[in-house]
């Protein structure tokens, strides 16, 4: 296989990079996730793309892969306008993806995986696979990525690091000129990482263009030629890697979001001196004691005080959402115990709701709401049992209606929306208010919030923050999981940082420091 770029295609004359993003804009449900991002990836360059969760990296990748279409701006590949409608178009344009969660079929052999979309056929007029050609071409690709397995080896027998290499071999087999690597090292050992980096460097030297997305800043600084830093859908920095340092990258990623405003936090009820919620353990409404679940969380312990807003920070995959699901009884845990107001918390979500636990999930469409059902039905859902009378459990419609009206006002739901309107038709902010309203209806003792303001406009965010504070002021404990450090610093009394299923940092309100929080969350040598 020849990787010297074809002279005719080589955009050397006009110096334009192979892949160009130009003033790309993209919104989801009225929220801008990319606001005019421009950059390019040149031949023989490794470009690192860094940014916090939600900065817009995945969206850019989906645009390149044809899974999404930009609202404005244009993509160019080899100097031509590039408008992929599906992943197949991306493949045809010579763009390949190596994903964080691998896209290999573990029940098939390496060779079959490599040529899944393009099996070599015997030229006899019927679609009969040429096994010999398949094997020899696969062996050649494996040699190029430095793997010495038989092409017939089943992928399930390979360790994660070698599967990553098979992914790259697959990209080479598709004659890709551009390879995008998305968090390729998350599941690799340090030796496997070295092997990957050596291969990536080698590919660059052979004239390929590589886009490398990672949270591991140390790796990015070492491996990449150029860097692009994204924050809130904007490019906040770019240039040759030598102009960046680890600290500078972190502060650029974190930035200062002047458009964010937070309601003033009144002095929280001190843990240990709570009188509003007298519980056996000095004001702690929720006690988590040495919770472990292999591969998810390890030996987690913390207390949530009555009237406290406790933030949990960390990167995606740090185990934050998993922790919330374990607390709510959706996922199992192997050892440890959880206590609510001093008593052991067990059973189904339904039982836990009855005890006063509430959970706003990160996925409001799939898990938070019945999208086709009305605002009133969604608001009432959690409170239905309380509004029904035995023996036949007839519903008290007057009670339900007044609860719905009360909650609509409490969460300041848009006055234009009618009770009977499907929640699908609401904006993200109003949808989230409906989810919050349905939980506030039951006056929870502990509210777990997972990314409560994701995809929501600034105004609605502010109102949700206020609701969180109001609930805490009434003596409930609130646990907020968020990828936005700024947000947690704005609304929490205390922040715990998780990494790899463990708590790696704890910060009180008076020593909040975004760079130290991010450092505790990042998988890097500096942390």
């Amino acid at each position, binding site marked *: 296989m020849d990787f010297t770029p074809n002279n005719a295609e080589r955009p050397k004359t006009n110096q334009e990079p192979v892949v160009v993003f130009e003033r790309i804009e993209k919104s989801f449900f009225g929220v801008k996730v990319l606001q005019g991002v421009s950059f390019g990836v040149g031949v023989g360059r490794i470009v690192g793309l860094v940014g916090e969760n939600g900065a817009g990296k995945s969206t850019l990748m989906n645009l390149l892969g044809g899974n999404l279409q930009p609202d404005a701006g244009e993509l160019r590949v080899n100097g031509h306008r590039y408008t992929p409608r599906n992943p197949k178009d991306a493949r045809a344009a010579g763009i390949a993806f190596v994903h964080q969660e691998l896209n290999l079929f573990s029940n098939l052999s390496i060779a079959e995986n490599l040529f899944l979309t393009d099996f070599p056929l015997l030229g006899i007029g019927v679609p009969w696979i040429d096994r010999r050609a398949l094997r020899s071409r696969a062996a050649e690709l494996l040699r190029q990525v430095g793997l010495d397995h038989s092409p017939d080896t089943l992928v399930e027998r390979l360790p994660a690091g070698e599967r990553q290499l098979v992914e790259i071999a697959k990209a080479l087999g598709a004659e890709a000129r551009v390879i995008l690597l998305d968090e390729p090292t998350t599941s690799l050992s340090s030796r496997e990482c070295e092997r990957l980096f050596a291969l990536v460097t080698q590919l660059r030297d052979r004239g390929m263009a590589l886009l490398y997305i990672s949270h591991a800043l140390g790796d990015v600084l070492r491996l990449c030629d150029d860097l692009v830093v994204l924050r809130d859908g904007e490019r906040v920095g770019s240039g040759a890697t030598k102009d960046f340092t680890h600290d500078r990258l972190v502060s650029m990623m974190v930035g200062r979001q002047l458009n964010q405003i937070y309601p003033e936090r009144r002095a929280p009820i001190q843990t240990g001196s709570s009188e509003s919620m007298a519980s056996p353990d000095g004001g702690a409404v929720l006690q988590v004691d040495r919770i472990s679940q292999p591969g998810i969380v390890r030996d987690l312990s913390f207390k949530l005080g009555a009237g406290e807003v406790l933030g949990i920070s960390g990167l995606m995959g740090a185990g934050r959402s998993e922790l919330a699901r374990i607390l709510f009884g*959706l996922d199992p845990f192997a050892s440890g115990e959880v206590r609510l107001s001093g008593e052991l918390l067990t059973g189904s*979500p339904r039982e836990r709701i009855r005890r006063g636990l509430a959970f706003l999930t990160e996925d409001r469409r799939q898990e938070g709401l019945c999208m086709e*059902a009305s605002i009133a039905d969604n608001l009432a859902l959690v409170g239905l049992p309380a509004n029904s009378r035995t023996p036949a459990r007839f*519903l008290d419609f007057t009670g339900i209606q007044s609860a719905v009206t009360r909650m609509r006002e409490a969460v300041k739901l848009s006055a234009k929306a009618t009770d009977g309107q*499907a929640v699908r038709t609401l904006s993200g902010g109003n949808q989230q208010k409906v989810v919050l309203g349905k939980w506030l209806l039951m006056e929870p003792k502990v509210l777990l919030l997972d990314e409560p303001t994701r995809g929501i406009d600034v105004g609605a965010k502010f109102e949700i923050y206020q609701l969180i504070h109001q609930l805490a002021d009434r003596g409930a404990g609130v646990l907020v999981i968020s990828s936005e450090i700024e947000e947690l610093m704005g609304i929490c009394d205390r922040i715990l940082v998780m990494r790899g299923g463990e708590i790696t940092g704890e910060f009180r309100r008076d020593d909040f420091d975004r760079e130290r929080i991010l450092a505790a969350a990042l998988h890097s040598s500096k942390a």
Partner: protein
Amino acid sequence: MSRIIGSEFFVLFLCLIAFAAFAPFTPGFVSTGNFENLLTACLPLLVLATGQTMVLITGGIDLSVTAIIGLSSVVGALVMGGEQGWLGGSPMAMPVAVAGMLATGALVGLFNGACIAWLRMPAFMVTLTTTMFFSGLAVWLAKKVVNAESIYHLPPAFLALGAQAWMALALAVFATFVAHVLLARTLLGRWLYAVGHNPRASLISGVPVAGVTVGAYVLSGIFAAMAAILLTARLETGSPNHGKALLLDVIGAAVIGGTSLFGGKGKVLWTVYGVLFLSLISNGLNLLNLSDFLITIIKGVVILVAALLDVWRTRFVRGS
């Protein structure tokens, strides 16, 4: 146009149109005798489709209703049948038989629901296989006990349910009304819709999703058993073959009415319209002396169109 199609009464309009279209051309269509005939003939379908509506609302499907009819019918006849019946001739025969039939329906429903909710098997597969199993069981039971498939000599008190149109009507209307109240006014009803809309969100909101799902299939089983009572009384026979041809009509009537195969949407009243429409078409075409095959073809097309409308509505709504 979309206002008419989107209206709750769209299918009722269709019934009126069908009626107006048949009336001038169909001999004997507009007559008391035919109306009575139409009414009694559609009652088992009404009860079945009402039960099915509750399952469809949860996003499931119950294909086993015809098997439940067969098995209940045999069980009931074996209890109260005049010659070989277990309680033949006893004054307790009828109440025990009716209770036995309803229990049979409930138990089959419980089995279906347990497989679907607790073992997480697909409803389609579960109810398709239980159809085979319980149909077979019904035949086996009848053959074993009376050495024939049909069981005659049912007590007169029971047969009155079939002979007196008003009694059958009262039973069917009662069953339908109970289902309506259950869906519209009770906690379980709201939970059925919630599970159909989004089982994950429901679980997280404290809905006992597995229990609600099982409840839907048990109810469907009980309603099928009530249909078995109507059919057994009208045909004066206990037989494993009752209602065998009804399955597509049952799901068809619910879907024509507007109950969604995707769950979360449906009303008993809509199903009543659907049953009325399907029965009107069937009856009218029959009186026009069309062959059974042709009628089946036409009904098939009507149901297919209704299912297509369901997909369009769902995609139109969810896609935008």
